[in-house]
């Protein structure tokens, strides 16, 4: 079952196209990471999904409901936490939780208590007196206490120190079993550790969306050593990105690596190669290469 589905979803602010024809499907139970550089349109896309912004064109379905019609019944099953969310800062942590409780039929008191304890939140302190990380934790606790089916996190780790980040990720993984999680981030190192699916958004366009395992399999860094400076094949394959050449060594990233066909293709393109090294890539390196290559070959 698909929890989120978008069809040609677009958003423009006057002449700026923030999101362009986004087609996305997020399966139930997945942890979907929406990544991309700053200004890629991640937050705008999420705000359209949450019915905070109205799409300029296209449609989105969230939990089987048109995103423009999301109402109390749907929000009772969605937990949304955003880095720039304005919380009622005058409330204490305790009052914040008890205020939200009657809004949710599935609010779990014991679970809420447990969340507060595990996230080490100072119950009597006002939200305005909490650090940024603590506020995110409070927002997260208030968004998990009713066992939401869908958890949407918009840049939750932005600006947090690594210790708090680890705590949040740990809390999320431990407490969201069975829920679908959509998380936007440009913190690729953390995403890599727990996301099951990933989508790459850039300039408002979704460059790809696939399972993490598939992504990790199809990107490889290729390093070819020659005896002397080689001639480059023409035309250069469009799936080979980020070419760098230093004397007799050639490096690039293959964005469509196949264990069977890619080595053969390299041999044909570079018959004079002395040695070929094929290395798996961390997520961060994949996105750096995509960004550097003009983001056109994903």
């Amino acid at each position, binding site marked *: 079952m698909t929890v989120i589905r978008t069809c040609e979803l677009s958003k423009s602010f006057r002449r700026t196209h923030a999101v362009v024809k986004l087609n996305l499907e997020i399966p139930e139970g997945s942890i979907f990471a929406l990544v991309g550089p700053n200004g890629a349109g991640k937050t705008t896309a999420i*705000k359209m999904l*949450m*019915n*905070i*912004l*109205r799409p300029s064109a296209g449609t989105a379905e969230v939990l089987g409901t048109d995103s423009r019609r999301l*109402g*109390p*019944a749907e*929000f*009772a099953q*969605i937990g*949304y936490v*955003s880095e*720039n*969310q*304005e*919380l*009622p800062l*005058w409330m204490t942590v305790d009052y914040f939780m008890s*205020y*939200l409780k*009657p*809004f*949710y039929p599935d609010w779990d008191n014991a679970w809420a208590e447990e969340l507060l304890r595990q996230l080490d939140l100072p119950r009597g302190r006002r939200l305005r007196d909490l650090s940024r990380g603590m506020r995110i934790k409070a*927002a997260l606790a208030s968004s998990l206490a009713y066992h939401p089916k869908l958890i949407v996190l918009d840049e939750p780790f932005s600006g947090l120190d690594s210790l708090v980040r680890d705590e949040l990720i740990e809390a999320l993984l431990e407490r969201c079993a069975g829920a679908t999680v959509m998380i936007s981030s440009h913190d690729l190192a953390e995403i890599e550790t727990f996301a099951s699916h990933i989508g790459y958004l850039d300039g408002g366009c979704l460059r790809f969306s696939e399972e993490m395992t598939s992504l990790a399999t199809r990107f490889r860094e290729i390093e070819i050593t020659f005896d002397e400076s080689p001639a480059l094949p023409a035309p250069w394959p469009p799936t080979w990105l980020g070419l760098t050449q230093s004397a007799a060594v050639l490096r690039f990233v293959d964005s469509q690596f196949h264990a069977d066909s890619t080595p053969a293709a390299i041999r044909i393109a570079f018959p004079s190669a002395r040695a070929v090294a094929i290395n798996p890539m961390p997520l961060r390196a994949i996105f750096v290469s995509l960004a550097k290559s003009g983001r056109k070959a994903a």
Partner: protein
Amino acid sequence: MRQTLHILGKDIRRLRYDIIVMLALTAIFAWCAGHRSPFFDWQTARMNEMAELLEQLLPVAWWYLMARVIHGEQLPGDRQFWVTRPYRWQSLLGAKVLFIAMCVILPLLISDCVILRLQGFHPSEHFAGIAWHPLVFSVVFLLPVAALACLTVNIAQMALTFLAGIASLVILALFGIRPATIWFGSLDWVRLSLVFLVVLIGVLNIIVFQYSSRRTGLSRILAGATVGLAMMVGFFLPWTFAFALQSRLVKSRVDTTSISVQFQPEQRSPARAPEYTRVGIPIRLPIAFPGAPPGMIQIVDGMAGELVLPDGKTSKPLRMTAIEGTKENRWYVMTAEPSLYERVKNTPLRMHLIVLLTLYGNPRTERIPLEGNSHRVPGIGVCATEPFEPEKFTTLQCLVPFRLPGRTLAQFDNGGQVTGFGRMVNSPWPTSIGISPVNKAYWRLPNQAGATAFVFTTMQPLAHIRREIDIPNVRLADYAY
């Protein structure tokens, strides 16, 4: 309903200190306004000053409280935590309405009763006023500000928007676009009622639309359209339309067929030098309205005339701008454009006049001694006389619950006439616009030797009448002196 009460509880908890201050201010206002005196008195002067100060401050304080409660769940923007929580918009709106009703309107209602009681009026005798005052107050003072709060993110933005609106009005006034106050006089309630009706419909739509959809851009366009339409009505409403509406709304209670219009050329006003005023040339027409039923008087609300020009076309309408003369000989001053006047001043022309009159009756007379304490005047309130610049004037001041009767006429008991205008209120609404349920009204009359009392006559509007008359062979030059 449960969610409504839950949000209301949160708002009360959040704003408890503001509410306490507000209630304290309202209580002080009620106490001070309840001890106002109709005449100057050193003992109550402080009370008067304090009540007047609070009358200015309280609306600002109410607006502040309303803005705070509405901005608690601000509607414009995309960062508020509550928009992705299971709030029902009806519950949220209901909570805000309940809060305003509990913390602003209910205290006002109680304050009304306290002020009336302290002033010696029994609230049960003014039920219509007590019921109507919060409604008028809400439409005039609260709802527009509530709508503004729905369109803004904080008080600073709200204040800036408000100031920008005031600046726009000033700029419009500089360009000569300003309210057509002239000759609306007793008809002004129609114009004001229409303006506030437009405002009411507009702001209710804005508030409901904003809470149900949070489409601030569209709501702001709606707000702009509402302001524009209200200004159009306020500035450009034809007075003939206002009169027609008044006649339709207020049913005639007497037979008015005996009242006619007569042009009396022999009663021309005494000769004087021709005048050129800023608005044109005054043409003083001697007109009488005989046939009023016994015990009744008629007052002209407005008059418009058209001249049939030598080429057969009609001129631009001439508007009545003043009434001069005595009860026996009245001249109704119509103003003609200088260019038109110069072109046709010596040509006999046919003039078509439309006259709008209000017939007043049911007179009630009270005698108020010139020396002594305050007096209760049925139908008015509590009145007192006070010598003002003893050699010249005496002032009659009254504390009036909710509103004045239709027409009030103050005379000395030896027959002296009331001076000035502005004591005709044709509005059928049980209250005037204001914060306090008890308002001050005063009449200032030149002193008359031998007078021992004011004779105070109140009358009610019984009918609004339209009459038309054709006057042949009018030479404007004969009446423009």
